[in-house]
């Protein structure tokens, strides 16, 4: 008994963390379980096990079109936001210049503004200029709210770099450009990859800003939101679950590759 209490108090934090992860994953597991439901019209009550939804993930009208849009928007917005954000992070992390606090403020403000306000204000502007919302406006909006998160992530990585590594490269007669290409950039790569992953997940999962600026274009979260009123098809669970597993596998593979590279 005494041993049990000691084990318990020693592992208290681990137990607590396990509970935290359980909380985080209960709805994910629920979504996965109900992707096998033999549903009719709405996927609310359990009616029996079937693989049909997984065999036919595009079975619900427009669902794969919406998913395709979300993926396209995610890739385009992530690419642009990662480039723009990394450049800003380099300027902030590597150079002294006038107007620095203004730049910091401009990066911070979009994060301190509720998504609803970001979405509503963009729509107001697009409407004022007679610009019809659609695919392009979604991409514009996603890049806008992702930039700040990229800057913060990459900047943290730059701050943790040892400046002596770059100095060493210079001492070995590498010019500034070569030092950047062969020392700084490879050292920053994990931070940039992390920022891109964060940007993609924010873009892929965004509903509020997208809903304002999408016009007739459908995205996956918008599809889920709209069809929830009439009854959600289990195909949405199939796609939600597969995206979760695909993301997990990609990141884990990346981890393995990185670890192997470190060993060799």
């Amino acid at each position, binding site marked *: 008994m005494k041993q049990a209490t000691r084990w318990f108090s020693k592992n208290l934090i681990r137990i607590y963390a396990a509970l935290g992860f359980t909380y985080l994953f209960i709805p994910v597991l629920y979504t996965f379980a109900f992707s096998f439901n033999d549903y009719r019209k709405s996927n609310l009550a359990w009616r029996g096990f079937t693989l049909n939804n997984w065999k036919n993930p595009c079975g619900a009208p427009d669902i794969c079109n919406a998913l395709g849009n979300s993926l396209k928007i995610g890739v385009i917005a992530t690419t642009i936001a990662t480039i723009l954000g990394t450049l800003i992070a380099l*300027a902030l992390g590597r150079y002294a210049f006038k107007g620095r606090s203004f730049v910091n403020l401009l990066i911070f403000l979009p994060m*301190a503004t509720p998504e609803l306000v970001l979405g509503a204000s963009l729509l107001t502007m697009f409407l004022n200029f007679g610009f019809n919302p659609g695919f392009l406006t979604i991409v514009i909006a996603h890049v806008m709210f992702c930039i700040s998160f990229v800057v913060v992530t990459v900047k943290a990585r730059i701050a943790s770099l040892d400046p002596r590594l770059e100095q060493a490269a210079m001492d070995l007669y590498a010019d500034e450009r070569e030092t950047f290409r062969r020392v700084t950039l490879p050292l920053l790569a994990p931070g940039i990859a992390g920022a891109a992953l964060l940007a993609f997940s924010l873009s892929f999962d965004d509903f509020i800003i997208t809903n304002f600026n999408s016009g007739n274009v459908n995205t996956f979260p918008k599809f889920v939101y709209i069809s*929830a009123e009439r009854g959600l098809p289990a195909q949405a669970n199939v796609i939600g679950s597969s995206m979760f597993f695909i993301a997990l596998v990609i990141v884990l593979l990346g981890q393995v590759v990185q670890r192997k590279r470190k060993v060799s």
Partner: protein
Amino acid sequence: MAFLHAAAKHGSSETKKRSWLPYLLLLPGLVWLFFFFLLPILTLVSTSTKTPGLGIGEFDQTYRFANYWDAIVNSRAQFLRSFEYAGIATVLALAIAYPLAYAIAFKSGRWKNVLLVLVVAPFFTSFILRTIAWKQILGTSGFVNRALIDLHIIGPQTHLTASAFAVVMGLTYNFLPFMTLPLYSSLERIDPRTIEASGDLYANAITTFRKVTLPLSAPGVVAGTLLTFIPAAGDFVNAEILGNPNTKMIGNVINARYLQIVDYPTAAALSFTLMFVILIMVTLYIRKAGTEELV
């Protein structure tokens, strides 16, 4: 890097070129933020004082600042409720995320990166899908609800959804990763030897936590609480899916004014008020927490 700055003043052509470099790096991103963040906010402010024109969805600029008064008076309850729910959700998220981030930073060994990814991974299932899942789980036939009825904790026929409890739980749940990640990154920077040293100096676990770990992780606490409170205060999806008409938040009002009632001036006035109140709260909070750098 201050030397670059100093050298630029001497004005050789080489260093002059370099002093332009940071601005060149900043330019594309800042232009984007100017046109698609600042300019829209200014448009929003200008729309907020307009009055309805002849056609539907047409508005004339009449500088009617009373729009703000009307909007705030009519939606006072929803405003206060938003800040109340967001505040509770932020405290709960901090209580759940701190041990989680601590365990990932110090107790997870080689699993650290995997666990970190698991914190973000639920994003890919789509947050609307997960919120709908909570509605089902907490609903009358959901397993949580049924277990509570079987244990006689709640009466038969009652359900946990369509309540303030469900909305706050949903907010806590949905913004948990935004709390966990900044906490983790500030905890991870703490040298474990600092914590050991505190133990060597005869501080017990609680004193060590209070005097060493917590102060060192303060930037993470500030960033995490902001990244949770701000989106939670402006959210309408949780209140819509998990709430009832008496749990409507300011987000629900703004959303309806914009997209259903097409009353842009009121929606704009409410949006700007929300942004303004949040910015004041954030500024006071950051001052109090003593964080110099904003990002």
